[in-house]
């Protein structure tokens, strides 16, 4: 029988599964708060302990197992129609997001660390949003310059003084986290507007359980299937009305995330509505049904702020509902996430999240931010100019990779030109060290080889903060690539958070633990 051969990761990678000679050891330089989490024994052959059960299975399976089951997975995904839309010649074609058959595994301890850190971070961000739209204590205290907020295009002046129920601005957050080659996790971005991808997390799990049932019998993988139930609970908790009518607002079936919208609405048992299904009368929102108009109490919107109401925002929007904003301001409908949350996930505000945690919660931040140099500060500016070839320099309001310089990949001339641009308007730029994303063995054309990954856990804020263990792992399928976006050749992986008893300690240890009566 031929075994599955695994291409080892380069020595400078942090690989989630394998350790190669000379590679950085996990936890080597963990911060105090993380050290309890990261430790995981490494087996002699170079497989990390929490991957031992998977590796045993892999090494005892015939070589064609993975390719056969991947073919089954592709068929199932296509049949179920789990696609995203790519805009092209004929008005949009549907593509599958490649789903890798090798899981990304996270230990129970690491997850518990991440969960605490995420809860803290999202709690602080909600406090921050409530503050800047009301008292602005953080501005008065001088922690964030006023112009950084009020001059920000994502700051919705219309929201100043508007009461948001329970001060929950962000009900659904998707936090992008990467692991650097120092073995530590870093938050790259807080997605606070309409984060997507959770349906792929759920479908990946469903598919893996269907294709590899034997793997789920070998160890405890914590379930994620209750996410829609938690989401519905979160949305219902956003209002004080008993038994509220909840809807999910979609831009429609030509939107790239339409599959996710239909999936979540169906799983929650709520109506999937488009703007044309709704109307506002006397500042209440109704949907048109076969039995006549029906009041809507809570709206989970998957549409950006500016499209929500042509009377309040972009007048040319045909996707929204005229009059919605007035109904919202009067408290007659709850919109999740609230309007105006984008100001808190802007690159110019990101560096202040650790300060927010200290200011609002009086706690030390649990999760690391990527060190960020703000060129508006003279000391930072001179550091950035001196070290540009080692840094990623970004425009603060830029998105989608525009107006940025990736130092290590740039020519001397490009660095020089960009330095001139930064000098001309320093406050428009930030800079960060280049991170090396961790890798995970992935089943690609050439066999099993390391590919870079990130992690997007989904954090729900109702009366309390809740999340399912794990999140969406995105993987850059091209060798060496750090781009995990689905529009640019990215795929996804099922993300396993192990149960306590299976946390890389092996069966004997787990048994011992049980017999001790824990």
């Amino acid at each position, binding site marked *: 029988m031929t075994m599955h051969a695994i291409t080892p990761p380069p020595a400078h990678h942090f690989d989630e599964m394998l350790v190669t000679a000379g590679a950085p050891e996990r936890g080597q330089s963990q911060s105090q708060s993380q050290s309890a989490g990261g430790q995981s024994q490494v087996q002699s052959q170079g497989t990390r302990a929490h991957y031992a059960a998977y590796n045993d299975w892999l090494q005892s399976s015939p070589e064609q197992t993975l390719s056969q089951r991947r073919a089954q997975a592709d068929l199932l995904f296509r049949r179920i129609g789990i696609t995203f839309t790519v805009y092209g010649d004929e008005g949009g074609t549907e593509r599958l997001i490649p789903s890798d058959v090798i899981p990304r595994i996270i230990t129970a301890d690491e997850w518990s660390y991440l969960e605490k850190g995420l809860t803290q971070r999202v709690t602080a961000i909600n406090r921050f949003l409530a503050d800047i739209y009301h008292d602005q204590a953080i501005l008065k205290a001088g922690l964030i310059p006023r112009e950084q907020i009020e001059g920000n295009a994502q700051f919705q002046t219309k929201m100043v003084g508007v009461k948001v129920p329970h001060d929950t601005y962000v009900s659904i957050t998707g936090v992008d986290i990467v692991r650097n080659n120092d073995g530590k996790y870093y938050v790259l971005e807080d997605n606070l507007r309409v984060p997507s991808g959770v349906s792929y997390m759920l479908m990946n799990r469903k598919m893996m359980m269907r294709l590899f049932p034997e793997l789920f019998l070998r160890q405890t993988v914590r379930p994620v299937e209750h996410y829609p139930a938690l989401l519905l609970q979160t949305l219902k908790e956003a209002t004080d009305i008993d038994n509220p009518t909840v809807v999910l607002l979609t831009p429609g079936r030509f939107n790239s995330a339409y599959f996710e919208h239909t999936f979540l609405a169906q799983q929650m048992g709520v109506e999937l509505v488009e703007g*044309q299904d709704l109307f506002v009368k006397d500042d209440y929102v109704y949907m048109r049904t076969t039995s006549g108009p029906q009041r809507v109490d809570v709206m989970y919107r998957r549409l950006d702020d500016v499209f929500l109401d042509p009377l309040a925002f972009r007048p040319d929007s045909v996707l929204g509902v005229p009059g919605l904003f007035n109904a919202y301001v009067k408290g007659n409908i709850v919109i999740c996430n609230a309007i105006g949350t984008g100001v808190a996930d802007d690159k110019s505000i990101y560096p202040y999240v650790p300060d927010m945690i200290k200011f609002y919660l009086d706690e030390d931040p649990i999760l690391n931010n990527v060190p960020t140099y703000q060129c508006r500060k003279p000391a930072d500016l001179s550091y950035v100019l001196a070290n540009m070839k080692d840094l990623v320099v970004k425009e603060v309001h830029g998105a989608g990779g525009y107006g940025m310089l990736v130092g290590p990949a740039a020519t001397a001339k490009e660095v020089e030109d960009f330095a001139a641009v930064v000098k001309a308007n320093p406050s428009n730029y930030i800079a960060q060290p280049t991170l090396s994303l961790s890798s995970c063995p992935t089943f690609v054309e050439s066999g099993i080889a390391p590919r870079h990954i990130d992690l997007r856990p989904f954090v729900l804020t109702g009366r309390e903060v809740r999340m399912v263990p794990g999140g969406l792992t995105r993987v850059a399928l091209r060798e060496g690539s750090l781009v995990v976006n689905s529009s640019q050749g990215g795929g996804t992986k099922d993300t396993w958070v192990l149960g306590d008893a299976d946390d890389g300690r092996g069966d004997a240890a787990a048994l011992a633990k049980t017999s001790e009566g824990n």
Partner: protein
Amino acid sequence: MLSRVAAHLYWMSRYLERAENMARILDVTQSLAMLDRSADSGGAMTPIVITEAQAEFAATNLPATYENVVAFLAWDRQHPSSIRNCIESTRENARAVRGSITSEMWENINDTWIAFQEKSRSINPLMTGNEFFEWVKERSHLFRGITFATARRDQPYHFVRLGTFIERADNTARILNVKYADEAPDSFEETEVDKETDYYRLSAVLRSVSALEAYRDTYRDVIDARRVAEIMIFDPKLPRSLRYCMDEATAVIDELPRASSRVTRRIVSEINAKLRYGTIDEVLDYGLKRYLADFLLDMVKLGNSVNAAYMETH
């Protein structure tokens, strides 16, 4: 249920039924063409006339051969009622409401669409054969069976059924209409020779609505034009007769929310009463062609009323 969702379900089901009916018509046309070697262009045009696609077909500038007609009605991208476009529209409507139908229903429609694309790559349109028509019919049967077996009997189910029966009644009336459209009422007094040649055409008409066995069981006699019209209009037990379709439509509409259904219920009840209490003699006295034209107008009226009552989003 959302009005827009009702509209998508209704049209999803109408388009699928339309694809099936087109396949039935083309299947029968094919067997007639094989039977009648001297079939002139007039015979080949019959399916175009039944489905009122004369203008669309003329726009292609293709000669009216049997092969061209079949290729056009099965595969043409410009013709809104081609089987291709019906399947695409079925799937687009289903995709818009995939959360309101069972996953089995959605996966079946999506499967049909995926398989159709493979067929459209492998089949030469000019050589589209019986196998393809059978496949379309089977996919439609399968969907109906899955719907029957998996859907809760609430609003989405009712709108799916309503679409099926309105589209089906419309189709049966069109098939009958073409068979007799150009014939004077006295053609029902046929000569022996006419009977001989007409036998195949009449049995083809019956087969196109799966009624040949029913005819034999009911009349146990030779096939004649008057009885064919009678069974296709009035038989309360034949699933594709006008009477049966309108019985079903009446029952379905009775299940829909009452708030806005008064006019619709009245219209469907009036149509139904004409079928329940009518006879073939009255129809022939009145003129079959006129009668069927009235019925097709009634279908438009019913469709508009359903739309106004349940599906308008503005």
